[in-house]
């Protein structure tokens, strides 16, 4: 296999990894603060993508500028979901939370299908024809922008959590809810904030996905969401560094491994494509990690 092809696939993997990381960090944040697993997180990504699509279609401004708007919009939707759906049933049992968020999946998917049909939507990035040459390889500019965007988001998120009073209060709530209340922290407000922030990160993932040339449809969220769950479990529940490492590993592995296997079986004279196995690889890695280290790579309780 050509080295430049491998590098190109590596960048493709990094880019896919970025989407998983943005989703996984939001999920981790919501789980950390509220102890709720939001199974409908992929649908927030879908809504984020549609938000970006409509803002772009109606205004025509540079799609990269739209990301912030889509994030704010989904942040507000996140507040409503937390207040109207999760808060009334908090503390009534895990099963209720699970069924509620599973129900939200179908609610949002069908609502999107009803409002915007099940047809695929896409937008055209102004840079879709631009690629950057590094040595012998050519990389689409959009992928590079997305990788840079994700890095910036992660740095901003980390600074917010570590340096600001609000971020510290959210971390305190996730470590010990009762003690946080004793510090004078309004813990229900932290729930709301974590849901808003998690939804905004999902919107960032969804709009970046759309801008980079992927299509949006009402069901686009399921696969990335399942991958994000795999990322969280591989990285360790609640661990942000874990989510970053696992997200990148997964993104790269699922893109590089099929090619490796293909060239490996090629040695025996078998010509067969393994790209359709992409989604299987995530779960194969997941199973291996769970067998070797059930708490995940960076796994332990807290934060």
């Amino acid at each position, binding site marked *: 296999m050509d080295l430049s092809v491998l590098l190109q696939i590596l960048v493709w993997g990094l880019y896919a990894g970025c989407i998983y990381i943005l989703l996984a960090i939001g999920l981790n944040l919501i789980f950390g603060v509220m102890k709720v697993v939001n199974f409908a997180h992929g649908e927030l990504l879908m809504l984020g993508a549609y938000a970006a699509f409509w803002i772009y279609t109606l205004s025509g401004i540079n799609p990269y500028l739209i990301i912030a708007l889509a994030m704010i919009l989904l942040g507000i939707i996140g507040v409503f979901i937390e207040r109207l759906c999760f808060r009334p049933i908090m503390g009534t049992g895990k099963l209720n939370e699970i069924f509620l968020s599973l129900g939200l999946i179908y609610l949002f998917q069908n609502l999107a299908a009803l409002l915007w049909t099940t047809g695929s939507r896409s937008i055209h990035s102004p840079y879709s024809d631009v690629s950057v040459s590094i040595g012998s390889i050519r990389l689409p500019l959009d992928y590079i922008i997305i990788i840079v965007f994700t890095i910036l988001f992660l740095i901003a998120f980390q600074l917010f959590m570590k340096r600001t009073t609000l971020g510290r209060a959210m971390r305190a709530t996730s470590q010990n809810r009762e*003690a946080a209340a004793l*510090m004078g922290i309004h813990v229900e407000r932290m729930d709301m904030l974590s849901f808003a922030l998690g939804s905004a990160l999902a919107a960032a993932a969804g709009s970046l996905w759309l801008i980079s040339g992927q299509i949006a449809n009402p069901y686009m969220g399921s696969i990335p969401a399942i991958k994000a769950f795999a990322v969280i479990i591989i990285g360790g529940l609640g661990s942000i560094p874990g989510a970053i490492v696992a997200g990148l590993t997964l993104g790269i592995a699922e893109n590089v491994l099929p090619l490796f296997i293909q060239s490996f079986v090629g040695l025996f004279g078998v010509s067969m494509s393994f790209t359709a196995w992409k989604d299987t690889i995530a779960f194969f890695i997941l199973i291996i990690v769970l067998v070797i280290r059930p708490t995940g790579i960076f796994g332990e309780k807290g934060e």
Partner: protein
Amino acid sequence: MIMLEIKGLNVAYDKVQVLWDVSFNINEGEIVTLLGSNGAGKSTTVKTIQGLLKSRSGSIRFMDKSIGGLPAYKVVAAGISLVPEGREIFPKMSVLENLILGAYVPRARAKDLRDESLDWVFKLFPKLEERKKQLAGTMSGGEQQMLAIARALMSKPKLLMLDEPSLGLAPVLVLQVFDIIKKLNEEGVTILLVEQNVHHALGLSDRAYVLEKGRTILEGKGFELLSDKYVKEAYLGM
């Protein structure tokens, strides 16, 4: 002047009633102890005052304002701080971050006020200053208890409630904790102490109430209760 006044407090967990018509009060500047065996309702009482639990009926007045039914964060803002049983520090944060969180309430949050409070608690607990970068969860039980007290002080409370601060500590540390409580009281902090360590607690207190099965059954001056026949039999094993 009465600082905290509890009248006819009834508290229940689901259908099990834990407090029955509990009434007591604390004057400004006092150290008052709540005595009682396990399950008597001492922790329930302080948690209800703090707003972590809701009462079924009864009134809680603090500084002439009703605080009954307020959520915990508003009670903290009103000037009551609780050092919970079992310390409940934030294990994955540094000592300094724990203390900064202690000053979360608007009244104590400003940078200069916070630095002032930090100076104050570091003077009371010099060890915490040496350890300020250490992760709180890696400290010993005694140090964690000191941190929990210091953290509660960061909000500059008018009333400090301590739930079994000597629990699980070595005898030397127990004495240290009681010394600190005395020192704080001399600096003007009113104190409500929940203790099983009857001898030390009563020696330190102005007044004490004895709770049994969720009711206040005795009240008296600290030293008087020490020689009370019932207290001697029930708690001092004499």
